[in-house]
């Protein structure tokens, strides 16, 4: 089957029910998208599918054929994503960093749909887990991004 990932076409030989995550990581070698739980609990595997955030660990690859997939590797090619990355660096969000690919994807999706989210909207959208406890830095970074748009 053919996948469009980061504006490139990839011919992939995988079972229809293989989670997108493992195709991205093992077949295509794009390891910025992380495996954390395999159950859509933690969000480390978040990618964008047609601009919406999706948990790739439970997304069958056959379901995203013909759709535009964006992974962390290409997030700076997206205007919103580029600003999110800059804010993440500015606010020194990352600690261990393992969850941050997913956090950046979640923040990008949020800001694409809601350019100036309220605190409650941030809390509702940013549900990815972080064991290092970077939540306050994430919240501050997203608020800053929201302010830029107001």
């Amino acid at each position, binding site marked *: 089957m053919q996948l469009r990932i980061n504006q490139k076409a990839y011919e992939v030989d995988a079972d229809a029910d*293989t989670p997108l995550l*493992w195709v991205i990581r093992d077949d295509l070698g794009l*390891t910025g998208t992380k495996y954390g739980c395999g159950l859509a609990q*933690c969000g480390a595997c978040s990618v964008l599918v047609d601009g919406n955030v999706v948990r790739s660990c439970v997304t069958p690859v056959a379901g995203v054929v013909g759709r535009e997939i964006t992974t962390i590797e290409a997030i700076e090619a997206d205007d919103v994503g580029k600003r999110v990355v800059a804010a993440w*660096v500015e606010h020194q969000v*990352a600690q261990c960093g393992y969850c*941050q690919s997913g956090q950046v994807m979640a923040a990008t999706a949020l800001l694409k749909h809601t350019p100036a989210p309220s605190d409650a909207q941030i809390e509702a959208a940013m549900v990815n887990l972080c*064991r290092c406890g970077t939540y*306050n830095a994430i*919240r501050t970074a997203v608020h800053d991004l929201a302010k830029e748009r107001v």
Partner: protein
Amino acid sequence: MSTPKAFFDAPLSEPVNLSRRHFLASTAVGALVIGFGLPLGSARVYAATANPTERGTQVPAFLEIRPDGSVRLLSPFMEGGQGTHTAMAQIVGEELDADPATFIVEAAPPGEAYVVMENGMRITGGSMSVRMSYPTMRRLGALARAMLLQAGAEQLGVPVAQLTTQPGRVVHAASGRSLGYGELAGRALDMPVPDPATITLRDPSQFRWIGKPVKRLDAYDKSTGKAQYSIDIKVDGMLHAAVQHAPRLGMTVGSLRNQAQVEAMKGVHSVHQLPGAVAVVAERWWHAKRAVEALQVEWLEAAADSTVRAMPADFSSDKYRDFLAAQQGPARDDENEGDVAGALANAKTKVEATYHNQYVNHAQLEPPSALARFNPDGTLEVWLPNQAPDMFRADMAKRTGLDPAKITLHSPLLGGFFGRHFLYDSANPYPQAIALAKAVGRPVKLIWSREEEFLRDVLRPVAVVKFRAALDAQGLPLAIEAVSATEGPSEAIAGKQGEKLDPTALEGLSGKSYAIPNKRIAQIYVKGPTMLGYWRSVGNSLNDFFYEAFLDELADKGGHDPYELRLHLLRDNKRLTTLLQAVGELSGGWKRGPYTAEDGSRRARGVAMASPFGSHAAVVAEVSIENGQVKVHHIWEAIDSGSIVNPAIIEAQVNGAVALGLSQTLLEEAVYVDGKPRARNYDLYPILPMSRMAQVHVKIVESGEKMGGIGEPPLPAVAPAVANAVAHLTGQRIRSLPLSRYTFA
């Protein structure tokens, strides 16, 4: 963490070849730009270590300066989020006179050269990295600077005394000439390392980077998916593996009912039996995982001579707590001052209470993995998360029979650790990865699924603590006794109680600074059936909760405000008085409440203190009850680590420690029923989400005392501060964690 040194002693006896060539070759994974590769006579390197007190003087083992002036530093310590690689760049850069932003920091391989801690160890744990290596790493930078100056003198043909440096350059002011470090490095790093006694360190008043909020070196890579963790490493010809562990540790593989069918599944390379596990090797990890989960295994009960801690079929964590509570002793004293028995017998007012905590998992986001490759020359290379490379290599040598010199160990970034990646028999995937690589004759990367990780993670210990205290006529504590029925992580790993008490069992009950004239802290050692390990802030993570919550009980019983009582009990301790006052001020002045906040919620505050890992912390927490659950609005935390390297990273570490502290306080618990963990993933083992994080306010107090730790010290006071606030708000004593077990109106 005051871990017994014996536990961490790794054999370091074999000579380590630290020629430049080896140094460069040993790290040849990924795209490494090698600027130059002059071999360095190893005799010179050994000469520098002839005196064992001169640790961290083998400059070429640590530093490579590239033609463009960038500095590659091999860090003795692992980066797992705590910011130690940035701190190392600040410390070395300050004395080298090179901007930390020009540094590329990676974890050093195992080897004697990197044993730089003042206690003779090399681990990443116990909040020790910076505080135990600070003078040594400064000196390392200064030694390298002296070598660059000497090389500059030769190259410019001027006396070295006429030269100075500015960041990244050797400068001859008289002639206006200068040379970049990158231009001099080839010559400089081949020079003899100067006598450390000749080195003068920079006056701290002149620091440009130490003590400043220098940006983390890894912030961009970690925000763009470029950072590589063990789980991401790939080598040519590599196969993937997944395992299914025995449902209870100690059980062994009897037979496989459907091996042929599984072998025929798509992508499967081979099926393997391992000690206490079955494995599938495949071309893709997803195929390996699906296949191994399809394997129908007949598991046999642990043999009587099992070498692992066999988990009983009827083990229940709740029942185990009752068992601990029923233990009568004998108890061994850790602290015994004054006359506790006499004070209790004659006391006007006595207070007694029993506390307990829960098992918790590490639940770091990166699941464990290990990549093993046997090379044609008979050497073994392993990539894996670890906090103690020399110990891991020694263990691999023992397991494989290989000479440690034939084992190369790579230590990529850690996707969180919190104590998870020490050497724990049965809890690390590398023995399996090595066995599989050997069996299939190809490199194998083994990833433990989240479910397999929850099944084999080591647990933070549980304790049941019985307190007794006596109050005097003024309601002030006259005597306190704490007897803890528990097993500490160090003695659990050792498999037996040592001649001395395991300090990780009682730290946080022991070592308190309150002026209570009669005190006794004792342990009833109870060897349990679970595999135990170190969890961020170790014994303090439970014991400071017990002690500080009980101290609030004494305050209430004696009619004293808990903040004022602490000030009174610390009246002769200037450092802790200052700290407690600092957190009071930070929170806008101590007020216990309850009071009504602007949003209409009823709130109260609690206070607690802890002195772990060479530092001191004081916390004020503000809570309310929302939909029957505790909501923590604010955490104010003052921390005194003596002196500091990076205030921004400290603030981030306090935030992280607060998050983990809240997580264990509010909702985390590893429950075992019938010998099995109830939770195998985050669905049934919830960890703190953003919605339950508190606002965190940090005050760094620099007392100027000996430098203490930062990664763990902010954690232990969080739970008791929250518990004390909740107790005051609700009138319900909090004598156990997590709070999700309580019902609040």
